């Protein structure tokens, strides 16, 4: 036994295990054409481990379905639901969508087929094609059975690790050497390869998602665009806080590095574009669906006190044209930051906002206060009166009426 189990041999063995894990980090691009759904409509698990997983998630879904964070507007939720049916692939009818009022960029898919979409996602999307891309990516996780595949991989690797660790301990004990370091090295290798497997699944979901949206005649370039936006937002946020950007990517991140992910997505987009016909962006449809909520979504965002990100989001949406709402919230970002010179920036923003026919009532109010501060009393009076005319029942209306009468 002592001859066979030398410290060097074991270290060498673990070293290889680690390399195998690390090698997974640089994955090759997965072609969208290679992605076939692994389940069909009405899928139910037949194996014990997956049945157990489903049962646990049924309770989770029950909790989410009863959450008071869910958006109650039927028109908006059914819009997202119908979009999901278009890009959800063969199991689209089985998918359940929960729209949660959380101002963050996120969406996740449960193994049982329910999806949670955060309102922060709707804040950031420029058109229906972008939103379809994110939803199709999540549907891809379900169609490719990623949850159970990820779990089985985790279980297999942790089994192997504990056998190796135990073998090293008992074997090392018999050989009279301490192998704790080697075991820790192997642990590291296992953890790394777990995350790389997870990144592989994310890349699969990207490829599956691209295929789904191009089949539904959406512009596949919307998907790399969304990633580009996220990278730029994170950078803009850090720049304004004078911090180094936290790219949400490290060796341990579960998602592929945004930059490499984007490169892969662009290449794959070209691949599917060549094969498909006309592509839609669905901007008007998207704007109509979120019209009643957009100001609330932007309001949530600017109140997060992340001026860099908020300005980036607003400017990104304004690539499709500025309007009163976007100008107003741009000004709000400056007002809420409140550093030297921000009051002037805000004042300019309110002035710009009220030049648009769709300026929200609050833009008139804040414009009124800004010009009042600058000593232009008549202009202020006109703007505040305009506010009262647009929002006669606002909570601060009586106060403003009183001060105008003085």
């Amino acid at each position, binding site marked *: 036994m002592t001859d066979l189990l030398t410290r060097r041999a074991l270290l060498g063995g673990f070293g290889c295990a680690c390399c195998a894990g690390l090698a997974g980090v640089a994955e090759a691009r997965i072609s969208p054409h290679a992605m076939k759904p692994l389940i069909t409509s009405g899928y139910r698990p037949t194996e*014990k481990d997956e049945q157990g997983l*489903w*049962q646990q998630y049924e309770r989770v879904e029950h909790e989410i379905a*009863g959450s*008071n964070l869910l958006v109650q507007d039927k028109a908006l939720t059914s819009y997202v639901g119908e979009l999901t049916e278009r890009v959800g692939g063969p199991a689209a009818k089985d998918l359940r969508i929960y729209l949660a009022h959380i101002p963050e960029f996120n969406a996740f898919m449960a193994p049982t087929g329910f999806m949670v979409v955060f309102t922060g996602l709707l804040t950031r999307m420029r058109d229906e094609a972008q939103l379809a891309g994110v939803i199709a990516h999540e549907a891809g996780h379900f169609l490719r059975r990623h949850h159970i595949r990820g779990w089985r991989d*985790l279980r297999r690797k942790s089994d*192997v690790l*504990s056998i190796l660790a135990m073998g090293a301990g*008992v074997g090392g004990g018999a050989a009279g050497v301490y192998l704790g370091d080697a075991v820790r090295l192997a642990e590291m290798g296992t953890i790394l390869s777990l995350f790389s497997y997870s990144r592989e699944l994310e890349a699969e979901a990207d490829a599956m998602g691209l295929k789904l949206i191009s089949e539904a005649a959406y512009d596949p370039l919307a998907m790399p665009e969304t990633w580009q936006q996220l990278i730029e937002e994170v950078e803009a946020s850090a720049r304004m806080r004078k911090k180094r950007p936290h790219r949400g990517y490290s060796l341990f991140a579960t998602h592929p590095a945004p930059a490499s992910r984007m490169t892969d997505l662009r290449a794959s987009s070209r691949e599917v574009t060549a094969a498909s016909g006309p592509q839609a962006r669905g901007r008007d449809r998207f704007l109509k669906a979120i019209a009643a909520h957009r100001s609330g979504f932007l309001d949530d965002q600017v109140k997060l006190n992340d001026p860099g990100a908020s300005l980036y989001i607003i400017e990104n949406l304004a690539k499709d044209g500025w309007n009163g709402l976007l100008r107003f919230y741009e000004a709000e970002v400056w007002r809420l930051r409140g550093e030297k010179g921000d009051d002037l920036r805000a004042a300019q923003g309110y002035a710009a906002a009220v030049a648009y026919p769709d300026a929200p009532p609050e833009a008139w109010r804040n414009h009124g206060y800004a010009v009042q501060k600058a000593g232009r009393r008549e202009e202020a009076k006109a703007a505040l009166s305009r506010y009262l005319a647009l929002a006669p029942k606002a909570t601060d209306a009586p106060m403003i009426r009183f001060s105008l009468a003085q």
Partner: protein
Amino acid sequence: MGRRSFLLLAGASLALGGCVSTRQYTDVEFEPPQGNYSLIVMRPDVQVGSISTGGLFEARADWTEQSRANLLRALADQQAGRGGRTRIMETRDAVKGVAPELVADLERLHNAVGNSIVLHKYVGARLPTKRRGIDWTLGEDAVRFGRATGMDYALFLYAQDSFASTGRVAMQVLGLAGCFVGFCAPVGGGSQTAFASLVDLKTGDVVWFNVLQSQQGDVRTPEGSAQMVERLLGRMRAGRNIRERQQ
């Protein structure tokens, strides 16, 4: 090492792993329900599964369903023995005249309150103002729920039981065998964790709270379930003031 002693040792390790502990806290004025009372069990959460070779918990749907049924039957039997009438609330809309939103609110509130009890009573972050017994309440919502359901007590119940897979048992044996060559690695096997929290629906107060941890038992069998219910709820102690007055 002889083969026989190895087997003996392995057997001993599996048998000796069994320790059972409960720790209950009661409201100082709590009297365990007796006689003609009613109890509603709020969507009991039961999870049963296996422990993989690497030590991960994996839920098993069939074991869970079977154990859940066993536990609830055992609970109803035990309460009936004290004179109590038990009703199981399977879903949030199970009681007519009670809005599911009220139930959801109550559950969320209990979740927060229960976490705070665990933090300040079990984890060790003691509060100087909450030394004696437990002094937490779910307030008016619970009283309203009691009035609407006509129930005296609400019980929140969570139970998890797990069993070592064949691979895990092998790891346990190996871990102990390693002791002979200077490498002791005790490996955890299956275990039970459960908690129960009793709310008096007349006052809304959490009057009794218990946490059970055990390395033995099997809730998949009716006997094992009865045993867990007995360990968790069977030895309800009266509150401190009541006990002092009795002495």
